[in-house]
């Protein structure tokens, strides 16, 4: 019976040559086994190959014979110090178990639900056989850039932007929103009435303040008392300018509190 054989060309290939050339029996030419195991993706595939090579029926596997051959391959591989993945040994154990269960006396008559111990193995072998046939089918398909070519030509270089999703009402509504929300310069407007101070004047005042006691440092909070926004900004600018001109220096005071104190001290003019 030659059932369970997929389409032609399913044999394992080693370096492009079909392995059908392998001699019958268990004579394995030097290096062939290495190539053989290399080309197999795993124990299931080796098993499937053995079954096919022996022209066995995948649905009625002579487990004893297949197991014998499978183990001989494994022994041969080990004799030649080839590295075998653990799954190969796991498969050997599974085959041995199936063999043992098949040797047990037949179940009592009427127990029709009793499963053939080979059933799961058959299922998995059939699944693999199907995948191999499907892979073979894919390989036969023509491929773009090798067997056929799509035709394409250049279009224009730049496509315009897609027209935005926008109605005239959106534009008008947006304009209304802009008109009705407070504008940022309406907020500081009232501070403009405060007496204004020039940057230069503030720098002079700050230096004079620090000189009241040239030995000590002044905390920022002392130099920047409760000022309105405008004066505060000018004062900060003045301090930054004095730092830049190296008339003042900045010290970061270590503090026991969570807040770090920043102090400013006048740099004494060099003699």
């Amino acid at each position, binding site marked *: 019976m030659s059932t369970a054989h997929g389409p032609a060309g399913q044999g394992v290939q080693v370096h492009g040559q079909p392995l059908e050339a392998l001699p019958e029996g268990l004579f394995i030419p030097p290096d062939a086994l290495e190539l053989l195991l290399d080309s197999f*993706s795993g124990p299931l595939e080796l098993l499937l190959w053995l079954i096919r090579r022996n022209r066995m029926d995948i649905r009625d596997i002579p487990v004893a014979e297949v197991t014998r051959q499978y183990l001989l391959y494994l022994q041969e591989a080990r004799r030649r110090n080839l590295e075998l993945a653990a799954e190969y040994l796991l498969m050997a154990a599974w085959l041995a178990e199936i063999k043992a269960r098949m040797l047990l006396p037949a179940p009592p008559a009427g127990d029709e639900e009793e499963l053939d111990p080979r059933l799961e193995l058959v299922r998995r072998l059939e699944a693999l056989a199907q*995948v191999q046939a*499907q892979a073979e089918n*894919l*390989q036969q*398909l*023509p*491929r*773009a850039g*090798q067997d056929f070519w799509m035709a394409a030509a250049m279009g224009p270089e730049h496509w315009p932007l897609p027209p935005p999703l926008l109605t005239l009402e959106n534009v008008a509504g947006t304009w209304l929103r802009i008109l009705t929300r407070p504008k940022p310069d309406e907020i500081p407007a009232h501070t403009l009435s405060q007496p204004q101070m020039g940057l230069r004047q503030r720098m002079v005042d700050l230096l004079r303040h620090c000189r009241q006691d040239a030995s000590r440092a002044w905390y920022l909070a002392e130099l920047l008392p409760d000022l309105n926004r405008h004066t505060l900004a000018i004062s900060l600018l003045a301090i930054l300018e004095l730092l830049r001109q190296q008339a003042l220096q900045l010290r970061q005071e270590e503090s026991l509190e969570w807040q770090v104190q920043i102090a400013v001290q006048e740099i004494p003019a060099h003699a």
Partner: protein
Amino acid sequence: MREALLALFLSSAESLSRERLAAIFGDDPAYVGWEAALDILLAAGEGPLQLISVAGGYRLQIHPRHRDLLVRLHVDAPRPLSKAVLETLAVIAYQQPVTRPEIEHWRGVSVNAQIMQQLQELGWVAVVGHRETPGRPALWATTSEFLQHFGLASLEDLPTVMLSK
């Protein structure tokens, strides 16, 4: 009309379906009769071109009679696919959508990340969802690029597997 159709097909990297063409031409009186022109193009081709059904639509392809010439230009054929890649692709194509553990079950060996990555880089497979089982494993399926690369009109055109029972 014939020219307009050719221009559309030649400018598109993807196949165009009748629905897509209908949306483009709309009721524009300038393009009345486009469907008849499409049918003629499908039947007779145009110069060195033939219109083929691929990936749920149509695409222009160079007629195979020019293959010998094109091979002289395109000396770098696409890389052959390894057995592991072909088998993994086969499981995804024929069983989709499918999780990686399911692929491994079908093939009887573990599927390494490189294989999945190679298939993704080719643009042939993509994650299309997750199976609502513990761990929510990703579900893999083939893309329309896969159909285009192998010149398939749809997944139903995948060659059927004959396994004698």
